[in-house]
Structure formats: structure tokens, C-alpha cells
């Protein structure tokens, strides 16, 4: 079998060694995607699970074990994975195809673009190792996938924050008829959002924290770090709002604009290259309405990233809470300098 674990383990069972958990989260949930897909499939017999030799590394194995007759393994062939998924969608099934971001986009982009996006086929791509959640370097880190997927017409693009949101998202996209690109957090996934109060809504950003000095607009797992940055800023008397934008497309322009009407110092925060993703989406919306803001984008700048441990990479590429807080202070400093 292919050695594409993207982690340090070859145990075949997702756990702490293959985890998306890069923080010191107090609570985690195991394989939230696999479990949520099983729950969705228990109520909807049209749901199928597919993978290209990465079932054990995308938590798809949880589904495969529960529904072996509804699981399709295509081997190491991502173009075929998305082509087959498109064909299955055309016969009325709801295929969830799991692989890594880099393979779903770089390797098989045309197959998703034509087979799913152009055709508005009901294909769900679930893509692991988003941004810096693997130490494997440029071949495995999906740093520009959101930009590529955002550029495709008809596609819903989601980067969930944590286990809570990932689970809710799976249930909702199973009911939504159309192509979806969902970034995956696998293994032991942090629980950041309160499942009793948080409700994921397709296409809606959520204001997780109010604040009048600076707006932290974040997506994906970076929202946890943005919340941590906001807590640190509060200690020095800076009130930071946190707007979590898990659906990158369709983009909730309204939520962004209503926040920025009142808070003009802005930091966007994404586990992705800063061109074409969340930072770009915010800049586009703001520029089009002519709002004057001070903006700093936190994310990977124009480079491929190194190999190494995830904590090392997160610090090196400044995706840590302290770097977010520092960016907020810089933006605020510029405001005072005016």
C-alpha cells in the first residue's frame, strides 16, 4: 500500500499520531467526519463513500467498516475517483469522495471542474491535510486548494473549524444537492465550538466574539487560534471581534460588511496561502463597496512550506495565536499613527 500517510504513523488507525490536532486543545473527538458520515448514511441510503487508497487516513474507514457494500475503493487514482463520483451522482447517488487536498485539486482538478462543477453533479469532495496540518512538505500540504475551488462556478467551499462544525457540516451537505469541497480534519480533532449552541449554516459566517477595536476574520482551524489571539489581546485591553467564515463560497459578504461598518481594523486569518482564499475574498468585498479599512492577512505568504513537525511549521510560518495578535497590534498601531 502507498506510503502517503502524511503523518508519522503507519498503524492504519487514525489516532493522535495522524491527528489534525496541532494545539493544546482540552477536548478532542475521534474521527468526527467518519462518524458523521455513518450517521448521515444511516438515514439516507443514497450516500456512498469513496476513496483513492486513503480510507484509513481520511477517516473514511469508519464508513467502510459500517457500510462495506456502499464503499468504493478506486485505488491510487484521484482523477478516476472524481470521475467515478460524478458518474455515481448521475445515477442518483450522493458520493462522498475522500482524498487529500493536494490530490483532489492539483491532480484531479479538471475532473471535478467538468464532472461535478460544470454538471452541478451532487459530488462531495472531502479533502484531508489542509494547509499546514501535515509535516510532509510541499507535496502534501494543500496550501492553495481554497483558491482553486473558490474559482470554480457552482461549487460550495467549506473549511470547518473543529469537530463540532465538521460533524454538523457533513449532515447539512448530505442534504444539499450540488458539488461541495469540504476541508477535512481527521483523527483526534479539537472541539472548540459548543455543540449545544453552535449551528453551522451553509453560506453563513458566525460572529463568535464581539469586539470594537479590531476584527479577526478567520476560517477553518485558524478560528481556534483567532479566538486564542482575541483572549490574549483582551489582556492588554484590546477588544477583538472574531468572525468565523467556514463557507468560503458562497461568501457571506453581508456578515463581513456589517462587522466592518463599525470595526475598520481587520486581520484575516487562514490556513492557506494569502492569495485567493479568505483574505482575498474579504479584500474583494470591501474594495467593491469602497469601505476604507486597514487590512493584514495572516496565512502562508507566496511560498511552498518546509517539512517538519506541525508546531514548528505553525510558528515558522506565523500561523500561531501570537502572530495573529501581533498582526492585530500592527494594524491598530497603523490606525493610531494616522
Amino acid at each position, binding site marked *: 500500500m502507498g506510503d502517503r500517510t502524511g503523518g508519522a504513523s503507519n498503524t492504519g488507525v487514525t489516532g493522535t499520531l495522524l491527528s489534525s490536532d496541532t494545539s493544546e486543545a482540552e477536548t478532542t473527538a475521534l474521527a468526527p467526519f467518519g462518524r458523521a458520515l455513518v450517521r448521515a448514511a444511516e438515514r439516507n441510503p443514497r450516500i*456512498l463513500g469513496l476513496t483513492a487508497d486513503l480510507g484509513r487516513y481520511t477517516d473514511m474507514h469508519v464508513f467502510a467498516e459500517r457500510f462495506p457494500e*456502499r464503499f*468504493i475503493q*478506486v*485505488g491510487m*487514482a484521484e*482523477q*478516476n475517483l*472524481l*470521475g*467515478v*463520483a*460524478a*458518474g*455515481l*451522482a*448521475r*445515477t*442518483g*447517488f450522493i*458520493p462522498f469522495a475522500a482524498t487529500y487536498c493536494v490530490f483532489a485539486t492539483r491532480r484531479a482538478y*479538471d*475532473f471535478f471542474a*467538468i*464532472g461535478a462543477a*460544470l*454538471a452541478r453533479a451532487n459530488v462531495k469532495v472531502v479533502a484531508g491535510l489542509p494547509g499546514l496540518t501535515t509535516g510532509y512538505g510541499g507535496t502534501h500540504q494543500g496550501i492553495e486548494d481554497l483558491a482553486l475551488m473558490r474559482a470554480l462556478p457552482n461549487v460550495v467551499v467549506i473549511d470547518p473549524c473543529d469537530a463540532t462544525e465538521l460533524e454538523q457540516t457533513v449532515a447539512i451537505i448530505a442534504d444539499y444537492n450540488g458539488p461541495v469541497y469540504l476541508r477535512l480534519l481527521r483523527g483526534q480533532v479539537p472541539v472548540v465550538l459548543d455543540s449545544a449552541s453552535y449551528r453551522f449554516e451553509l453560506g453563513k459566517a458566525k460572529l463568535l466574539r464581539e469586539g470594537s477595536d479590531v476584527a479577526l476574520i478567520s476560517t477553518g482551524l485558524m478560528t481556534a487560534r483567532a479566538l486564542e489571539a482575541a483572549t490574549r489581546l483582551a489582556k492588554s485591553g484590546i477588544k477583538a471581534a472574531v468572525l468565523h467564515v467556514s463557507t468560503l463560497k458562497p461568501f457571506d459578504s453581508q456578515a463581513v460588511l456589517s462587522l466592518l461598518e463599525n470595526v475598520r481594523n481587520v486581520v484575516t486569518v487562514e490556513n492557506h496561502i494569502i492569495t485567493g482564499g479568505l483574505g482575498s475574498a474579504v479584500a474583494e468585498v470591501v474594495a467593491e463597496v469602497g469601505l476604507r479599512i486597514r487590512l493584514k492577512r495572516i496565512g502562508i505568504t507566496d511560498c511552498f512550506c518546509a517539512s517538519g513537525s506541525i508546531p514548528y511549521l505553525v510558528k515558522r510560518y506565523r500561523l500561531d495565536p501570537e502572530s495573529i495578535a501581533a498582526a492585530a497590534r500592527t494594524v491598530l498601531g497603523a490606525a493610531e499613527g494616522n
Partner: protein
Amino acid sequence: MKEVFMGRAENCLAAPVIRSLKARAKQLRRHVLRMAERVGQGYVGQGLGIADLLAVLYFHEMRYDATRLDWPDRDRFVLSIGHYSIGLYAALAEAAILPIEELDTYGADGSRLEMCGSETTPGFEINGGSLGQGLPQAVGMALGVRLDGRPARIFCLLSDGELQEGATWEAALAASHYRLDNLFAFIDCNNQQADGPTEKVMSIEPVEDKWAAFGWQVQRIDGNDIASILAALEQALAAQDKPHAMVLDTLMGKGVPLFEQRAKSHFIRVDAAEWELARKQLEESNKEMDKNG
């Protein structure tokens, strides 16, 4: 007009069946010339070359309902090579899925009949044209109808040049792994692709050996001979547990000598004055074919 085709006549190799399918192929070729003449260019060579296969599939083998294109049990024709759409438009018009008059809009601005076929046109199962994508989607459909226990079969048309796309072989592996005997791939071997003869651009021979090595049931036949296509289909239908590949040696421009000779290019340009000659040649060659049985 309601046309429901429910598959084959009893004795499919009987002379009357062959005669009637030849008449259909003749009609498809007339439609192809009509479309290409209107727009003054197009993939006329491909449309003429594939008319015999489409006549057999649409008027003999496939089960479909022209008034209910989303019938879940229908056999599906998957056109991977979108630029062959001119041939499929002819068949869809002849099958009463498209109005015959609409053929005059082929390739025109705002028309549903695009030069490179897509789902804009009723009766198209996929957006073809990005080569290498047809067979993967056909595999998905074959798995899907089988999961639902439907009798539907999937007929996918590929080209020889398209065999250079790696994804075709990814799908070929999966089809035999899953023993998709409800899947039929037709490979149109006319030895022409955009940059020249396939054997010069990137040789794909021996084609049958490749499909056989990938676990498919394979036959190689004269793709412009209706009796051979019928006999090969019979053999394929009798073979279980394997997907079926039918390698068709065809002549681009078949039926119009003017184009047969010019068929050294992927995209034939025709002078305005030549269409009348082309039409005349088609009728003459049709007569010739009739004489030869």
C-alpha cells in the same frame, strides 16, 4: 411522436435488420452533411465515420424513451469525445429526441448544438470534450445502476487518441476490478488526432492487447460494417464478468470519397462549392453500398 426503443429484434443478423440499419446510417450521414454545410466546417469526418455504430446503438441495441430522457432504466450513451457531437446530434434527431430542423443550428451562436457536445443538448449524458473523462464517469454510472439493480447498460465512445490520457486507464482498471459487464467501451480508431496520425503523435497500438491486459473482453472489427458491429455486440453481450471493449477501425469521412481522401486532418475545411459534390457522392456511395448488400 413517441419512440421507445426496447432493444434488439429477435434475429439481429437477419438481412432485413441489417438493411434497415444501413438505411438509418445513411440518414445519419445526410444529417451530418446538412449540419456541416450550414456552418461551413466542423467535425464532419468524425460524424460520417461513426454513423454506423450510432445507427446500431440508437436503432437496434439501446433501450431508451425519447419522451422520458431521465428514465432511470435507460441505457446510457456516454460521448467522451465531445467533438464527435455532430454524429450524435444526427442520431438524436433521427431518434426524435431533437427536432430535425434544429440540426441547422449546429455550431451557431446561441445554439444548443455546440461544436463540442455538452449537456446543453437533450440526450447528452455528460459534458464530453475534456478527453479522458468519459470512461471514469461511465464506470461510475455502471456501478450506480448495478448498485440499484437496474438492467441499464452504459455505452461509452472513446477515440484512439484519447487512449493517451492516463485517466482512461485508471478507469479501465476499475472497470475490470469491479467486473462491470454492463459497461461497453467503443474505441474509434481512425488514426487521426489534432497533431496528425495517431501512430506518429504517440502510438497506441497494439490496442486490443492493452485492453485485454487490463482485464477487458476485447474485439477488433471494421467499425464501418454494420453486420460486424452487430455480431460483435452479440458476442460481447454473451460474455459475463468483464467489461467489453470494441476496437473499431473506421474511416474518417466514410461515405463521401471527397472527405475520405481529405481525412488526413482532424478538422476538415470544406469550400462552399464542394458541399454539393459531397452530397452527390454520399448518395452515390449509398447506392453502391446498397448494391453490395
